[in-house]
């Protein structure tokens, strides 16, 4: 009997469960405080003060907002497809959460003699997994818009879908160039290649720029937040939603922002690499656990910098028109990404020949 039990490493299961719970709660917490930060950033850029009533610096504002969302009346429209109507926000949330599984949050930690990897799964097609899950996120928008049985919601959902699909193309193409440089789809290998070396952004500045623009589009963030379009589609795909279902959509958007910041930091900015420090030497000096802590902190610093960039852009520039969006995506970014890919490939071939 024992042999069958022992065949499975129960500690492994517990370790991964703890990691999953930890990462999910961290991303939820970050998403919560992103709403606060967004309002604070908006206020500061518009010479206002922003939320400052609830707690010091308004830090309890997200709690109050969450409570408000929970207390609101839960409305499911009569003519909606009820099952899909509930499924929409769930899918949006699920897709947003699942992406974090393959991101390496730090090096290894030594937990009472057991080496724990701070990455939930290190699958060898990490990037493809991220792409797959991100594309699933569009189902949340599509199903939500469809199930609302509302023309505006449906149009916004279609917009969202076509936008995300269009921008996935240049995103993927810019990534191919990156993968040519790193030579691996594995997230840990991509980070490993950058540790103590040169960050990928140096090799792929154009690729990073394209990736950044596409990340804005994928997250439905401001220059490209057309699915929300208050002014023409009067709230977009979540028009019929109220209470926590609306909250889920908004939360999913913020989690997406967090995850895409994490992905950008991992792919282009060295992941958990501490800049200007020889990691191996520092590990010997401070020990494995402290090293993992520092690495995690550095990664979060990078992520927060990206999140601030997202917000900064949002409160600076107006929304694109839909034809401009498509024009930028198909006629500018795709050729640019292709060019970037070809040049990268040519350079690598040239170096191989030498």
């Amino acid at each position, binding site marked *: 009997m024992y042999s069958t039990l022992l065949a499975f490493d129960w500690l492994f299961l517990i370790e991964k469960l703890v990691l999953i719970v930890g990462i999910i709660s961290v991303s939820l917490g970050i998403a919560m405080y992103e709403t606060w930060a967004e309002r604070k950033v908006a206020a500061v850029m*518009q*010479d206002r003060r922003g939320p400052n009533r609830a707690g010091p610096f308004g830090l309890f504002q997200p709690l109050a907002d969450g409570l408000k969302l929970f207390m609101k009346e839960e409305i499911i429209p009569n003519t909606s497809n009820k099952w899909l109507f509930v499924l929409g926000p769930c899918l949006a949330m699920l897709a947003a959460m699942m992406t974090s599984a393959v991101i390496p949050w730090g090096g290894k930690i030594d937990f009472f003699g057991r080496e724990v990897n701070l990455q939930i799964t290190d699958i060898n097609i990490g990037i493809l997994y991220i792409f797959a899950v991100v594309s699933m996120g569009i189902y949340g928008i599509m199903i939500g818009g469809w199930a609302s049985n509302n023309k505006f919601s449906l149009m916004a959902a279609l917009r969202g879908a076509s936008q995300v699909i269009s921008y996935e193309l240049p995103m993927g193409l810019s990534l191919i160039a990156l993968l040519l440089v790193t030579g691996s789809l594995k997230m840990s290998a991509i980070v490993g290649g950058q540790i103590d070396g040169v960050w990928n952004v140096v090799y792929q500045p154009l690729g990073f720029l394209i990736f950044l623009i596409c990340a804005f589009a994928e997250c439905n963030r401001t220059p490209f937040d057309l699915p929300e379009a208050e002014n023409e589609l009067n709230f977009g795909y979540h028009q019929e939603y109220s209470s926590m279902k609306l909250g889920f959509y908004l939360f999913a958007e913020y989690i997406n922002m967090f995850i895409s910041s994490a992905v950008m930091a991992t792919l282009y900015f060295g992941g958990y690499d501490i800049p200007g420090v020889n990691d191996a030497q520092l590990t010997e000096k401070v020990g494995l656990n402290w090293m993992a802590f520092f690495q995690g902190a550095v990664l979060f610093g990078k992520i927060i910098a990206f999140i601030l960039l997202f917000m900064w852009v949002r409160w600076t520039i107006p929304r694109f028109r839909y034809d401009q969006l498509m024009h930028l995506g198909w006629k500018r970014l795709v050729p640019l990404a292709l060019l970037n890919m070809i040049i990268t490939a040519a350079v690598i071939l040239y170096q191989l020949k030498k």
Partner: protein
Amino acid sequence: MQALTSRAKPVERKPMTFVERLYLWNIFKGMMITLKHVFMKKPTINYPKETRPFSPVFRGLHVLNRDEEGRERCTACGLCAVACPAEAITMEAAERKNGEEHLYREEKYAARYEINMLRCIFCGLCEEACPKDAVYLSETFAPANYQRKGFIYGKPDLLIPHPKENPEEYKQALGNRANKQQQAN
């Protein structure tokens, strides 16, 4: 066509340059502008905690004054009601009885004195008209109320606190007005 004003500017219809069509540089310039605003001083006043300083001639809610011994100054002469352009003031006079000398300064006093704060335009003419310095406009303004009748202020609302019984509240109610009167004298 002749321009209607000298300020009219012709609209620029030049095709965008390459840099402008790239957007990125202009977006960067815009972001620098918003960054500049991060470090600017915020004009916000945290209202309930801080208040904007009033003008020295600000005219707020009315106060019925007392003299140094705490006797009401008003003699119900009705000059304020006559002077009032909005007809916001009504009063009823009464004769001072024996033994009420510590309450009212003169032989006649206002038994009822009402100002309708919804009608009042806070012009301060009542203050100018009063021969006894009995009514003046303070530096507080009308608070909100749920009903219209809440805005008809009677004597209990208007009278200044007794200078001997609670001198602190009296001083507070006088506000800067006391300093101003001293300066005027």
